[in-house]
């Protein structure tokens, strides 16, 4: 495991020259940092930035992977965003993880680092009133260095391409629905992390190959140290003890939810693009039917879907927990 970690670190070190700095602002010495890689996310970015600003994030460090829809310019003019850009292969950089590891190594030391995609909206118990600094202070007091989240796919009622959404709106007004509890959790044998599958994509697209269904557990919030490295996306992290974000006994720890706004109306064109670029996942071919299904403008809603109302609802449903916070 240690060698694997070193290999991953070496890999990202090799990619350090991939990135060119577009704009760098002063990074405050206190507070949570957000790290993200993105491409053509103009639709989501305004709300995404607002959401994390409201949670008290102190700075954003973003890698832009060749956007051509104006995301680059938009991000460059934000006062609290430092932007790097690259045209190298997303896949060759382990889906952007190598790039972010470089940045985290450099700027994230001994700080709470939140690694999220542009389609992930973090919520946690009482996130309407308590900011991220309160959460990290609590985790510090509990001697925790990592915070686990479930990724919850939100979807609209009716065909996904038909929903009306414009940039800056709250995506939760369009993507109101989710699958309440059809998640399968087990422990990953190699990395010791929790491995959760399920949700709407599993229900509709992976019925014949459940083992291929998307992984939904994430460890996005980590008090970073040099030498830490994410393995695949933010699902797994090394060293292994950082994956220990859940209780194996009967108790429950505090955890959050990443609301996944993948199914905004532009999912069809995005899938089309991803399919042709073949930059996602190890076996891009295996996922071709899945992307094809998404391009077909499916209706993800079913009778048992639940409408999202807020963090308290997710706590009641058992999708996240307060622990003793």
């Amino acid at each position: 495991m240690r060698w694997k970690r070193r290999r991953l670190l070496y890999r990202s070190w090799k990619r350090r020259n991939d990135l060119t700095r577009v704009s760098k602002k002063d990074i405050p010495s206190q507070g949570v940092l957000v790290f993200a890689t993105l491409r053509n996310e103009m639709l989501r970015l305004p709300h995404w930035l607002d959401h994390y600003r409201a949670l008290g994030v102190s700075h954003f460090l973003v890698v832009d992977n060749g956007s051509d829809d104006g995301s680059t310019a938009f991000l460059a003019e934000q006062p609290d965003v430092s932007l790097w850009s690259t045209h190298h292969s997303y896949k060759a950089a382990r889906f952007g993880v190598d790039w972010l590891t470089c940045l985290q190594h450099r700027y994230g030391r001994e700080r709470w680092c939140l690694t999220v995609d542009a389609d992930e909206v973090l919520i946690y118990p009482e996130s309407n009133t308590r900011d991220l600094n309160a959460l990290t202070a609590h985790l510090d007091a509990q001697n925790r260095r990592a915070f686990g989240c479930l990724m919850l796919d939100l979807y609209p009622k009716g065909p996904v391409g038909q929903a009306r959404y414009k940039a800056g709106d709250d995506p939760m007004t369009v993507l109101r629905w989710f699958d309440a509890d059809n998640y399968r959790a087990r422990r990953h044998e190699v990395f010791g992390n929790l491995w959760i599958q399920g949700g709407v994509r599993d229900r509709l697209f992976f019925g014949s190959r459940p083992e291929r269904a998307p992984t939904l557990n994430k460890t996005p919030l980590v008090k970073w140290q040099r030498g830490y490295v994410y393995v695949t996306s933010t699902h797994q992290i090394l060293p292994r003890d950082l994956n220990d974000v859940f209780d194996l006994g009967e108790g429950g720890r505090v955890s959050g939810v990443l609301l996944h706004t993948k199914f905004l109306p532009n999912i069809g064109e995005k899938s089309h693009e991803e399919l042709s670029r073949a930059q996602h996942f190890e076996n891009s071919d295996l996922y071709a039917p899945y992307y094809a299904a998404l391009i077909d403008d499916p209706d993800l809603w079913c009778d048992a879907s639940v409408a999202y109302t807020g963090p308290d609802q997710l706590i009641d449903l058992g999708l996240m927990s307060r622990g003793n916070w």
Partner: protein
Amino acid sequence: MSVGVVILVHTALNRAEQVIRHWSEAGCPVVIHVDKNVPRATYDAFVSSLSDVPDVLFSKRHRCEWGTWGIVAASQSASALMLKSFPDVRHVYLASGSCLPLRPVKDLQRYLEQRPRTDFIESATTADVPWTQGGLDFERFTLRFPFSWRKQRFLFDRYVEFQRRLKIYRRVPDGIVPHMGSQWWCLTRQTLSAILDDPERPVYDRYFKRVWIPDESYFQTLVRLYSQNIESRSLTLSKFDYQGKPHIFYDDHLQLLRRSDCFVARKIWPHADRLYDHFLNEENPLKGAEPNPGKIDRIFSKAVERRTRGRAGLFMQSRLPRPGHENGFTSASYSVFEGFTELFEDFEPWLARITGTRVHGHLYAKDRVHFEGEQKTFSGALCDNAKLRDHHAQLFLINLVWNTRGERQCFQFGPTDTQFASWDLAKDPNAQISVISGAWAIPLFQSNRNFSDIRAEAAELQRIESEHINALRSPYAKARVRVWTLADFIETPMEALQTVLDEMRAKNLRHVTEAPKMADLSGFGQFLQNLKNQGMHPYLMGDFPADSAPTNDRPTRRRPYLVR
């Protein structure tokens, strides 16, 4: 000017300043102790920022580290200064920089004026109260603790072990009985000065310097020597989690804190603007009521329970109990019926009608999940795909029961289904399992198939069911299990059904009058005999009487005449 406030400050100085101004405006003299760990420059800025506030003094600074003598020394020198400089002060209130007054200071002053001789300090003997966290209770007073628990944990633990092994114990000074309690107190001038001016104080100080967490025991013990009237409770509301760390109050606790009627609360999150705004800047009514932290107590003890016990029957992102540590595999009781749908033709609708519960078909059927009414997705968006279900058969059941909390679930199970959950059902105390063993033969009996196929399948089903019944009868099984053989069951079917229903304790359950329709079993005995004759001995259905031995002569029966 009856109440003086001693405030121990170490972080969030701007909030402390706000609170100090609030106390001072209400006419309370304040003595401030600032932790020596705070840098000199910060300290100076803090002092000058408070220079315009009247009746504020700064006491000698000590280094305060959690669990050490420094905090006691700080309270000693600050309260001594208070008593010396403000002769009018009758009660001294010890607070921290993260404490927030919840009621108008006038209210507190009036409350204490009415109780001029009462000392408010939580003080209990260690022998009687199991408050302590971390395994050290009386040993706090009998061992030495020269090492810091936070910074030198290894040495701390080793030294404790060492003393235990060599049985080195300290003697408690004569005349005192160790007591413990919350470190935030409110004492009268008489009691406090008696403690501080005691001729024996050097002895006590020397002793308590090596006690663990002396701030929770020094005053609590000595107050027993002098006080005439102890109210053993703290006027400061503070809650602790299962590790003994204080809970923090945030903006969302505003209503709770308001209704608690406590005078002071800690610890307040420094960025809880709404709390500080509400309690310091707004006019709050004088209540004159007794503090009533009952509701807050309940909420926080629930939080502690949630952290340590979790929510039964919930598997999620931050809770994945290993087998045997679940505190409840599932969250509610449910009923499993095996062999009933085979024996009764309309069992499912009948059961739903009689008990008013949710009755599913074979949830673990091999082709798909048979939810009630053959729905494609059920509560929680569980879907009827058998592959997804079998990918984690246990969690399928756990999720199903969790999603339908408040409504009892019944489902059918049998040897024709996938058996991944067989042991989990047997081990779950929430399961009520009723089995008619051998009923799987009835569909075979009714089927129109070649006898050799039937024979092979019967053998397989019998093997599976007997394995399942072994699980139900194993010493690990915790489910409430009832097993009838088919032969026993059909002798008194109504009685057996009634027992099962009674056990379910379903609401509005009348005495069962209407029976479900039983399948036609004439010829079944013979069918079993045929299996036996082929060398496959079906034993799970019990002794089923073969109707009659097969004879060669056909029963002659005349066709009835049709008369028009």
